[in-house]
């Protein structure tokens, strides 16, 4: 099997056993990028030279007999909204097309401290606004399982890179499902941590009360390893949770006896693909056979979550994106006066979806509409969160589909923003409530991967990792690999 098809933990074993070198592995992944990225288009910026230098440094350490971490020398990708010192960070927006951050995001610093190799910066929906990566200001990414379909979004480049063998692991960010939904569409594992678990310092803000960075990996084991590295308190993020980080790999236990699973009936929405529903039901049956208990529960405010989100997230975005004014960084278009400069700069360089959300948010926050839209949405957010609090009094985890369908065709939903938003219906309530959730592969429909979402209590990452690991170890879905370039 080619090196780029292995998981990080497998490759780590090979590196420390000196079966392969980090440079050899990095070259294999860079070679894979050379041969398939023209079709997949997962990367905005490639950092091949620094990647090889990082790998060389790891090989030197190993030659000196030093102990190296599990991600040392393992090539990965960062979503292009995670700031990397000296490496262009564009958010897939023309407004930041030439932006070179003068500092590293905390997660980038932590990964560097573990000697992880960074292959490049992954494509995304502009400013993380979208669910298909078609809103990238540069080019769309294609799903490695079927190049005519979308990889999901907004972390579509990260998920596609991992699925295509163009990266062994990746980081994404998740505001309304942007790690989990592309992971589901691309047949990989995506984890959105509890809000505050991973530092947001250096993550370009979209909706600050919802954004969270997390791993996209080939299996649950790698997800736990990456979580160990990126989690933890950071004084530079005022919303960081100041509690210790457990060793998540201790939760890689193939045993869910007695685990109480809740199946919220409201998540099985109209328009859901019957194959998706069947796959989830089959997974539940299997988990019960493995010793879990399950009950159907009701989360009555689920249907309101999407509407609340599409007021709250744009409102926060309209405020966060006010900084793109052509003054201190980014694109500038000259105008007759400063207001004209702002307008011309922003109108020329933002894409349609970003403009739509800025407008929607500005409207929801504007005088006369604030109470009717924004404040009401915040109150509904309370009710959505209470649904989770009540559910977790009865069960340990909740299981739902990650998305109502498998990956759709490119262009299918681009003219209908609302239809695109409906893809987020199963993931959005999780962000509104701040709880952690993981998406893992649980089947295929017409050759395309289906994702199952396991939602946990606040800081309940260990429980969802254990449940996900148990399911994974009793199935083979995660072992499939897109046949890209090998047909």
């Amino acid at each position, binding site marked *: 099997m080619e090196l780029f098809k292995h998981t990080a933990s497998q490759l780590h074993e090979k590196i420390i056993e000196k079966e392969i070198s980090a440079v050899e592995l990095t070259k294999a992944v860079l070679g894979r990028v050379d041969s398939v990225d023209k079709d997949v288009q997962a990367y905005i910026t490639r950092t091949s030279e620094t990647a090889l230098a990082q790998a060389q440094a790891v090989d030197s350490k190993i030659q000196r007999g030093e102990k190296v971490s599990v991600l040392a020398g393992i090539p990965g990708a960062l979503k292009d909204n995670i700031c990397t010192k000296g490496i262009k960070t564009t958010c897939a927006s023309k407004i930041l097309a*030439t*932006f*070179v951050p*003068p*500092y590293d995001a905390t997660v980038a610093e932590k990964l560097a401290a573990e000697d992880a190799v960074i292959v490049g910066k992954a494509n995304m929906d502009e400013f993380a606004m979208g669910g298909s990566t078609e809103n990238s200001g540069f080019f769309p990414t294609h799903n490695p399982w079927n190049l005519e379909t979308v990889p999901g979004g907004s972390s579509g480049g990260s998920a596609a890179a991992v699925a295509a063998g163009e990266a062994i692991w990746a980081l994404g960010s998740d505001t309304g499902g942007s790690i989990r939904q592309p992971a589901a569409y691309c047949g990989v594992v995506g984890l959105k941590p509890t*809000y505050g678990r991973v530092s947001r310092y250096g993550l370009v803000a979209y909706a600050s*009360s919802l954004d969270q960075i997390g791993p996209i990996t080939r299996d649950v084991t790698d997800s736990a390893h990456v979580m160990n590295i990126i989690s933890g308190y950071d004084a530079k993020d*005022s*919303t960081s*949770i100041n509690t210790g980080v457990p060793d998540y790999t201790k939760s890689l236990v193939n045993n869910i006896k007695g685990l109480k699973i809740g199946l919220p009936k409201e998540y099985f929405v109209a328009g859901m693909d019957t194959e998706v529903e069947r796959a989830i039901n089959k997974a539940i049956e299997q988990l019960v056979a493995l010793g879990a208990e399950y009950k159907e529960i009701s989360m009555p*405010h689920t*249907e*309101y979550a*999407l*509407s609340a989100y*599409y*007021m709250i997230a744009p409102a926060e975005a309209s405020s966060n994106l*006010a900084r793109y*004014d*052509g*003054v*201190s*960084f*980014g*694109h*500038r278009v*000259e*105008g007759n*006066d*400063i*207001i004209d*400069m702002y*307008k011309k700069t*922003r*109108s020329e360089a*933002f894409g349609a979806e970003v*403009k*739509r959300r800025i*407008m*929607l948010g*500005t*409207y929801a926050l*504007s005088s006369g509409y604030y109470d009717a*839209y924004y404040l*009401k*949405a*915040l*109150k*509904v*957010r*309370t*009710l959505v*969160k209470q649904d989770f609090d009540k559910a977790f009094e009865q069960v340990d985890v909740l299981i739902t589909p990650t998305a109502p369908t498998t990956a759709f065709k490119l262009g299918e939903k681009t003219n209908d*923003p*609302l239809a695109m*938003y409906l893809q987020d219906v199963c993931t959005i309530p999780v962000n*509104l*409530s*701040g709880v952690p959730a993981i998406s893992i592969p649980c089947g295929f429909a017409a050759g395309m991967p289906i994702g199952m979402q396991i939602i946990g209590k*606040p800081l309940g990452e260990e429980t969802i990792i254990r449940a996900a690991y148990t399911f994974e170890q009793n199935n083979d879905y995660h072992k499939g690999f897109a046949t890209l370039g090998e047909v």
Partner: protein
Amino acid sequence: MKITCKDVANVALLSRLEFSESELETFTGQMDAILEYADVLNKLNVDNVQPTAHVLPLKNVMRADETKPSLSRELALSNAPEQEDGYFKVPKIMEG
């Protein structure tokens, strides 16, 4: 209609964005559909519900008032579209 072209033009001004007539029409239609969808929120009685702006029980996180190293002026200006004498340069904002 929840929203008119005139409303959208006003929101555009507040957002520091400008649109052609046809773009304005498209946006009005799309925003109208989204606001129509958001109307579902009005089915709920939320009179006695506290708003949640943020899920963590955090308020006014402060750090100690200590000087720490920060970005050099050169680095802070390194992405500026235009700079002069160590400052960001913008078009004239006052008459005279």
